[in-house]
């Protein structure tokens, strides 16, 4: 009012100016109603806004104070670039050497609809890939489809060359490829994969589920250095004695870890179907066959260690027991005779030392068929071995365990097992009597998996002493490795051909453990059909073939494994390996 008055009182005010009324004019009637409606609408709108802002404010408080929902929802937008996990984890050996790796490998495809000049494109492509069929590629490029593979799995250099060609319509598809840097060295253990990285053999197949979608590499128990030595020495035996093939493995007897396992002939997992450049005549099926885990063999005399252990453990024999081995045993149509015949009564150590079939047969008969079957079952020899590779062989053994079977099984005929099963069981005989499953996966250092007691510690100790005798005085003298106290057993089996045993076809094997006074490692070597040569004086038996190889292997691997050499003639070692029943007796050379 004051302002109005003041304006009115202003003498300089224009005449036509009328000051606006400053007091709210309260309209009546319909105008008032309209104003009220406006006000209420404003209120509702304001309320809505307030509500929305309250929600926003609450959300802000939630994000800041409470943590704001899941972290994933916040970083989702930053996930534009992430590394795709390799479809399969790498495989390493126990020292971290790469055995199998998944690498990026682009594949070249074409969109024929975008190809301008097919003839020129083909000419250029053939220059980069000389092995590519020009006619075939031309047919593909003029097919009118919108997607044709030109070549899978290019090397980086090839990819660069194709990019340099600058042909429109050629594209790369991101793919992965398994590479095996060590090639045929670990072929049977690691195995190989197909073009889409599905495991086809070995650990690749056996542990496919584990490897798939795993980021951390898988460490195997394998030691690449040992693997190389084992394979090289085995190959040497095969070459020297023109054998068909062979298998070998090195095992940690206290943990069951397999440190090396090889089967020869083998293949290159990078090109599994390509012929071997050095031996093109060997059929593919033979090279792909894993003799160590899939092949089942009548291993022959090395089985006698089980016969002796059984007899000692169940009490039907002591180390001092004797068996008449003066005459061959005739049973049914079989005649059991000795290869290194002594034609006299032999004691238990002598049966093992001279590898007497007659003695072993009599020992097994004395124990009985039930005991023998149960004992072999306890050692896991009547079931396929459990191992991480997919190829495992089912043992063959007689359904009805008759007396003749008892006798032949006593010296390793009439029962076929895989070398792996044999080694696992033999490790239990020397390690104190605990059977531990063989494994290809690296165990933590010092970890001893829980095993199953199969023989008493005392029997195991006796077995170690007897196996030492075989190397000291018996059939396995060539396996001796001075300083490493090797103990073992030779085995030379006649192979079955058709329904008969073939005299000329042998399977020579040797199982050795060292240092036998406190066994740490076991070496099993086997060669299939060795032929005598001049150096071996016409022999192809285990004592002349695989026993010297075992000696060489042990001398080479022991320093790598950290085994301290000892003086074998020292009183401590002599005392630890003394066989009481032979004390004071002259030990006859076999």
């Amino acid at each position: 009012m004051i302002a109005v008055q003041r304006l009115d009182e202003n003498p300089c005010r224009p005449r036509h100016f009328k000051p606006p009324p400053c007091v709210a004019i309260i309209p009546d009637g319909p105008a008032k109603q309209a104003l009220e409606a406006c006000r209420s609408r404003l209120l509702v709108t304001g309320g809505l806004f307030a509500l929305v802002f309250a929600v926003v404010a609450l959300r802000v408080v939630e994000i800041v104070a409470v943590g704001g929902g899941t972290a994933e929802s916040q970083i989702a937008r930053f996930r534009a670039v992430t590394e795709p996990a390799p479809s399969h984890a790498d495989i390493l050996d126990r020292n971290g050497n790469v055995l199998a790796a998944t690498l990026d490998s682009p594949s070249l495809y074409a969109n024929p609809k975008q190809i301008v000049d097919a003839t020129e494109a083909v000419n250029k492509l053939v220059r980069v890939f000389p092995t590519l069929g020009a006619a075939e590629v031309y047919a593909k490029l003029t097919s009118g489809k919108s997607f044709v593979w030109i070549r899978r799995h290019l090397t980086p250099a090839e990819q660069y060359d194709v990019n340099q060609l600058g042909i429109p319509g050629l594209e790369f598809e991101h793919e992965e490829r398994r590479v095996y840097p060590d090639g045929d060295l670990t072929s049977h253990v690691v195995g190989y994969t197909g073009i889409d990285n599905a495991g086809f053999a070995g650990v690749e197949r056996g542990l496919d589920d584990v490897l798939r979608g795993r980021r951390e590499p898988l460490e195997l128990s394998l030691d690449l250095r040992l693997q190389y030595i084992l394979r090289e020495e085995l190959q040497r035996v095969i070459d020297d004695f023109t054998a068909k093939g062979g298998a070998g493995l090195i095992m940690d007897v206290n943990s069951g870890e397999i440190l090396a396992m090889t089967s020869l002939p083998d293949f290159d997992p990078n090109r599994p179907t390509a012929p071997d450049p050095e031996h093109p005549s060997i059929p593919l099926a033979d090279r792909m066959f894993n003799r160590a885990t899939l092949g089942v063999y009548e291993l022959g005399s090395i089985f006698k260690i089980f016969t002796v252990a059984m007899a000692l453990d169940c009490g039907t024999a002591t180390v001092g027991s004797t068996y008449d081995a003066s005459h061959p045993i005739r049973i049914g149509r079989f005649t059991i005779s000795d290869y290194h015949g002594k034609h006299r009564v032999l004691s238990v150590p002598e049966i093992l030392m001279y590898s007497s079939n007659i003695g072993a047969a009599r020992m097994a008969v004395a124990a009985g068929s039930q005991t023998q079957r149960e004992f072999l079952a306890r050692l896991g020899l009547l079931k396929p071995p459990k191992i991480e590779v997919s190829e495992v062989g089912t043992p063959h053994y007689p359904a009805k365990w008759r007396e003749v079977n008892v006798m032949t099984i006593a010296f390793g005929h009439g029962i076929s097992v895989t070398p792996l099963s044999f080694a696992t069981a033999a490790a239990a005989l020397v390690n104190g009597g605990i059977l531990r499953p063989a494994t290809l996966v690296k165990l933590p250092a010092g970890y001893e998996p829980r095993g199953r007691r199969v023989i008493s510690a005392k029997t195991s100790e006796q077995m170690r002493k007897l196996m030492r005798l075989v190397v000291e005085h018996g059939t396995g003298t060539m396996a001796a490795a001075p300083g490493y106290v090797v103990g073992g057993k030779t085995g030379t089996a006649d192979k079955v051909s058709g329904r008969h045993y073939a005299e000329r076809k042998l399977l020579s094997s040797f199982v050795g453990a060292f240092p036998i006074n406190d066994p740490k490692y076991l070496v099993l070597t086997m060669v299939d059909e060795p032929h005598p040569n001049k150096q071996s004086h016409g022999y192809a038996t285990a004592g002349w073939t695989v026993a010297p190889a075992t000696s060489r292997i042990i001398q080479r691997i022991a320093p790598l494994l950290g085994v301290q050499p000892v003086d074998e003639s020292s009183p401590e070692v002599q005392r630890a390996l003394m066989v009481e029943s032979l004390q004071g007796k002259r030990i006859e050379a076999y």
Partner: protein
Amino acid sequence: MIKLSTLFWLVLASAVGFAMFAVKYGVQSLEDELNRTKRAIIAEQHAIRADEAEWAYLTRPETLDEMNRRHLSLGPMSTKQLRTSVTDIPLRAVAPAVENPIVAVADQPAESPQSSIPTSTVASISPEKPTDGPQLSKAPPPKASAKPVAPRRPRSLDELIAQVAASR
């Protein structure tokens, strides 16, 4: 008065708007850079994987064996080369005292055939040696004969051990 506050809010609003867009574009460019870096890291990781595989290929036992054969000819370690403790190492025999000290010094580095004989026995014998051997000169035996192990600076580990063993 009213105009001033309006101006203030206008400026504030535009400043906030500008800041918001600046931050937004800043974040976007940072995100782009992050993605670029991530892509580079992944490319680098793939390259490393390829290099690791290549390294494994280049250092496979077969190649190393071949290279060793060509350049080094190292053989497997024999048991003779392994000793469990220092005391197992045979002590080098002290060179028998000779008249001409120059010859004695020249002989020392060469492996003596008596190297396996413990020092104590040699030390007890050596003073008598000059009398057995032919007298090459009239000069009295040098100090070396009186003190078989002269405490001088050892030139090799064997010498050091021999000295320590002799002084015990």
